[in-house]
């Protein structure tokens, strides 16, 4: 049941990404071209997402004791603002602006069977692993 729910959640998420226009890099670049020929369409994706996520996290989640198919809710606990957060987000923004793909659409677009999108995904996962490896190495050293 847990695994079926994971598949269904992914399907709804992927359907939403394609419906919203996030998997079309022309849309994404148009949205990111704020200082040029701005296409505001994709701002509505975030509006739609927060429209449902905000009431849920603020009022709904507290009323549920535990997830239906897991032991506990795994919520982020960190509240510190550090250089990693800002630097990481900044790098992510640069990469996003370079190609027009963020992780969700990059993976969802694998449905288009375009080898270039697979290359993007592989490079992205490589970037995550290199970061994780360097991170562990630095932690082990100190």
């Amino acid at each position, binding site marked *: 049941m847990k695994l079926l729910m994971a598949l269904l959640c992914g399907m709804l998420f992927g359907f939403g990404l394609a419906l919203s226009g996030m998997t079309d890099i022309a849309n994404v670049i148009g949205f990111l071209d704020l200082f040029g020929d701005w296409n505001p369409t994709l701002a509505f994706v975030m509006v739609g997402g927060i429209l449902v996520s*905000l009431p849920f996290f603020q009022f709904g989640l507290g009323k549920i004791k535990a997830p239906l198919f897991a032991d506990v809710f795994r919520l982020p606990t960190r509240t510190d603002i550090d250089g990693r957060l800002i630097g990481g987000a900044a790098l992510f923004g640069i990469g996003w*602006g370079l190609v027009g793909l963020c992780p969700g659409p990059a993976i969802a677009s694998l449905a288009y069977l375009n080898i270039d999108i697979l290359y993007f995904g592989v490079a992205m996962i490589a970037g995550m692993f290199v970061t994780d490896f360097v991170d562990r190495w630095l932690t082990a050293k100190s």
Partner: protein
Amino acid sequence: MPDAFLMALAGGICIGLAAILLMVTLGRIGGISGIVFSAAKSPVGDFWAILFIAGLILGTFLFHLTSGHPIPAFKEPLPLILAGGFIVGVGTKLGSGCTSGHGICGIGRLSVRSLIATCTFMLLGFITVYLRLHGGVA
């Protein structure tokens, strides 16, 4: 409101609902960069993440199958694709999240960290695209 705006809004609502459903059923944050890393790092232990990713691809496929919406074009030079992908991977790992985890879930949780991360990656996205399209770079 033009159709594209409504589709973006409806798509965003689907994404938000999917994130809620994932939290209610599996107790996990619907942040794609984190899920992708879990799936790649421990495909057996976190098999749910593999299925979520399979669903992500299947969902996009089903949208185009049911709507007849044309498949968007994707044609960029390979070095740019590889560099962009790598930087997105490093950035989301270092910054603990992407558009979904920080942008939709984090802001929904009223997390200051996520709000700051979202403003930062949007700003850098704006600047990067400006330089690419209007600044004579790349």
